[in-house]
C-alpha cells in the first residue's frame, strides 16, 4: 500500500517532470500545507514538478494541517502561500482574513476550470475545489447474503440487519463507526442530525438549536447503533474503523468516500473481506428523504500576505497539479471523486455520487460551526456512555457552545 503510493507519486513526478518541466513560471515561492491522503499527495507531487532554479516549491502534508495552516498564513509574508482545505476548514481562514480572492488569477490561468470548481463567497472566488467527498455505507455483501439481507437503505434497516447478524452468530459486533470522542463523534452526530431534518442554529443567527427533537432522536439512534459496535467505539477514529473492517470484524459501516478506493488495499486482508467489499449510498433516517450524511469538497486557497509574484506562481503550480491530464493515470483517477474536467466515476466513487444525488446537505460554512463541532465532540461522550440523558447532553452542548461563541464574539 505504502510502496504503491510512493511508486505512484514517483512515476507521476517523473511523468509530470518530463511532460511539463516548464509550468510557465519563472520566479516565485510556492509553499503548500494540506491534509495527508492519497489524492492530496498527488496534488502536492504535481505542484512540486513545477520547481525550477528560480521557483522553490515546498509541501507540508500532514494530518495536523488544520492547527498549523492559520498560524502559518498570519505572518507577513506568510510561510504558506497556499493551504489545501475543505469546506469546514476554509471558514477558519476566512474568519481571520488570511486568504486572497482568486478572480484575477482564475481569469488569467484558470481556463480549464469548470464553473462548479470555483468556490465563491460573497461574490468573490476564494478557493478552487478539485474533489468531492461524503460519508456513505460500505458493507460485506457476503455476510449480508449469508443472513439473507439486503444492503440497508435506512439506519433503521441497518439496526435490524445488525440484530440479525448478531443473532445468527455471523458477526458479534457487526456495526462499525468512527465514534471517537471529539471531532469524529461530533461529525457522526451532524450526519444523523441533518438526516432527521435538524438545523444547528436558529435561522439567521448564531443561537444554538441542537437541543431539539431531532437532536434527541439522533442521539438515541447513535446509542442504539453503538450497542452493535466494538465496546471500544469511543476510541475509534476512521483509521481504527478502517482497520477493523480490514480485519473482517465489521459488516456494516458509514465510511468516508476518500477512503473507499483503498479500503481493502493492504497486506494480510482476508480474501473474503476483499471479495465481499461493497459500496452503497448514504442511508436516510427516521423516514426523511435527506441523507444522514454531509457533502464535502477539498480545494486550494492562496494566502493574502504574499507578493503577487508568489501568489501567481502558487496558483499556476496548483493549476498544473489539477490539470485534467492527471486523470489519464488510472491509480490517480480512482484516488478520489475528482471535480476536474473529464473525470469519469470509478466504482469506488458511486457512494459519493449517490450522496450528491440524495439532497445531502453540504457541511455548513458558518463562522461559528467550528465552535459547535468542538462543543459536540466534548459533551456527547457522557450520553454515549449512559451517564446522562440525551436532553442533558444536548443542554451541555448548547451551554458549552454559548460560552465559547461569546468568547469569540459571535454571541452577545
Amino acid at each position, binding site marked *: 500500500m505504502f510502496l504503491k503510493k510512493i511508486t505512484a507519486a514517483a512515476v507521476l513526478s517523473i511523468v509530470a517532470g518530463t511532460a511539463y518541466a516548464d509550468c510557465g513560471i519563472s520566479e516565485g515561492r510556492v509553499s503548500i500545507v494540506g491534509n495527508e491522503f492519497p489524492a492530496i499527495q498527488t496534488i502536492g507531487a504535481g505542484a512540486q514538478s513545477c520547481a525550477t532554479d528560480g521557483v522553490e516549491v515546498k509541501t507540508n502534508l500532514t494530518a495536523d494541517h488544520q492547527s498549523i495552516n492559520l498560524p502559518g498564513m498570519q505572518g507577513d509574508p506568510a510561510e504558506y502561500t497556499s493551504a489545501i482545505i475543505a469546506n469546514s476548514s476554509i471558514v477558519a481562514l476566512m474568519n481571520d482574513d488570511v486568504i486572497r480572492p482568486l478572480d484575477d488569477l482564475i481569469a488569467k490561468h484558470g481556463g480549464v476550470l469548470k464553473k462548479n470548481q470555483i468556490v465563491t463567497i460573497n461574490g468573490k472566488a476564494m478557493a478552487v475545489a478539485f474533489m468531492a467527498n461524503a460519508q456513505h455505507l460500505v458493507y460485506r455483501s457476503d455476510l449480508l447474503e449469508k443472513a439473507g439481507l439486503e444492503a440497508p437503505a435506512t439506519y433503521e434497516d441497518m439496526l435490524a440487519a445488525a440484530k440479525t447478524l448478531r443473532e445468527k452468530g455471523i458477526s458479534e459486533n457487526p456495526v462499525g463507526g468512527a465514534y471517537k470522542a471529539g471531532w469524529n463523534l461530533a461529525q457522526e452526530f451532524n450526519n444523523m442530525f441533518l438526516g432527521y431534518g435538524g438545523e444547528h442554529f436558529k435561522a439567521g443567527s448564531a443561537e444554538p438549536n441542537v437541543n431539539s427533537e431531532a437532536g434527541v432522536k439522533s442521539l438515541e439512534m447513535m446509542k442504539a447503533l453503538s450497542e452493535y459496535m466494538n465496546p471500544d467505539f469511543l476510541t475509534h477514529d476512521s483509521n481504527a474503523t478502517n482497520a477493523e473492517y480490514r480485519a473482517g470484524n465489521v459488516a456494516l459501516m458509514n465510511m468516508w468516500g476518500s477512503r473507499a478506493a483503498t479500503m481493502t488495499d493492504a497486506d494480510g486482508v482476508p480474501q473474503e473481506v476483499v471479495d465481499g467489499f461493497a459500496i452503497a449510498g448514504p442511508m436516510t433516517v427516521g423516514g426523511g428523504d435527506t441523507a444522514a450524511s454531509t457533502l464535502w469538497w477539498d480545494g486550494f486557497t492562496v494566502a493574502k500576505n504574499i507578493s503577487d509574484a508568489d501568489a501567481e506562481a502558487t496558483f499556476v503550480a496548483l493549476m498544473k497539479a489539477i490539470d485534467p491530464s492527471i486523470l489519464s493515470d488510472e491509480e490517480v483517477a480512482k484516488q478520489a471523486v475528482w471535480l476536474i474536467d473529464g473525470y469519469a466515476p470509478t466504482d469506488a466513487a458511486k457512494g459519493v455520487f449517490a450522496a450528491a444525488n440524495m439532497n445531502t446537505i453540504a457541511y455548513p460554512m458558518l463562522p*461559528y460551526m467550528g465552535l459547535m463541532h468542538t462543543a459536540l465532540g466534548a459533551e456527547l461522550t457522557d450520553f454515549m456512555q449512559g451517564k446522562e440523558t440525551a436532553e442533558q447532553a444536548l443542554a*451541555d452542548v448548547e451551554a458549552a457552545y454559548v*460560552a465559547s461563541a461569546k468568547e469569540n464574539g459571535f454571541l452577545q
Partner: protein
Amino acid sequence: MKHKTFFWFFLPTGLAMLIFIAAPIVSVVMQSVFLPVEAVLIETENCGPFGCKVETAIDQEATAKAREANPLGRFAGLEVYKDRGHLAFAEVSEAWRTSDSFGAFFGELSDLPFYRAMTFTLTYTFTVTPLLIMLGFAIAVAVNSLHHRLKGLVIFFSLLPMIVTPLIGSLILFWMIDSRGILGNFISYLASDPDLSLKASTPLMWISLIVYGIWSSAPFAFVVFYAGLQTVPQDTLESAQIDGATRWQQIRYVVIPHLMPLVTFVALIQLMDNFRVLEPIVGFSAQAHATSLSSIILTDLSGETQQLSAAATTSVLTIIGVAILLSPVLVRTWRDFKGRA
C-alpha cells in the same frame, strides 16, 4: 559575595528567566483577560461544487476596522475565568442551590469541564506521585545490591520507560490493552468476561492511565535515588549492622532519612509534571473518560476555530494550580533557608 559581583554573575540567568519565563506568563495572562473583537456578521451568497446557498460570513472590512481600533481585543476582565468552560461560578452556585445532597452537587460539578478535569488530574497526581516514588526507591535499592557486572545492563533496562517518547510509550500500552490486544485479552480471560474492555470503562481507563504514569516516571525517581544511595555514609550503616539492625531497619532508619531531601525534590518535580498530564490521555484516546487541564487546552487550540482566550485562561489556572500544589514544599524550603541564615 559582593553585591556587584553577584549582580553580574546572576545577570545572564536573570535575563533568560525574564524573557523565557516571566514574559510568556505575562502574555498568557494578558490574553486571558482580552477577547477577540466582536465579529460583524453579514449574509452572503456562497457558491461551490454543490450549488449556491445564502450563509452567514464575517464582514472582513468592518471586522478589520474594529480590530484596528482595538488591537488587543475587547477587555473582558475575569469574564472568561467565570464562564462555564472554566470556573463556572454561575453554574456552581446554581448546582449548590438546586441539589439536595452532596452527591447530587458533585454529580452536577462533574458535568462542568473544569471540575471534571480537576477530578481526574488530582486523582492522577496524588496516586501516581507517591507510588512512583516508592517504586523508584525499590528499584534503586534492588539495583544497588546487584553484582557490579550486572548493574549497567539492569540500569539501562530500568531507564527504558523514560527513554521512550511518552506518546509512543502510551500508544504501545494502548494497543496492548485493546480488547483484542495481549493484555486486554488476558484481563478479560482472568475476569472470565469476554465483553470486558478496559477502554470502555471509566474506572479501568483511569487505572490504565495511572499505571502508565507510574511506569513512565518511575525511572526518574530511580536515577535520582540510585545516585543518592552512592552517598549513604558507610560508617553509619556499619555501626547499624554492628548494633544488629536488620536490612529493613537499616533502610528505614539510615537510608531513608539520608535520602529525604531527594524525596522532596522528586516529589516537587513529579507533582508539577503529573498535574500537567497530557500525553497518556492523547495516546490512550481517553478523552471520553478522562480530561486534564492540558487536554482542555489542546482541544481549545486544535478545533477548527482556535479559542485562544479560553486556552490562555486554562493555562493561567494551570499555573495557579501548580503554585498551590508546590506551596507546602516551597514554604518549607523558605523556612530552611531563613533558619540557616
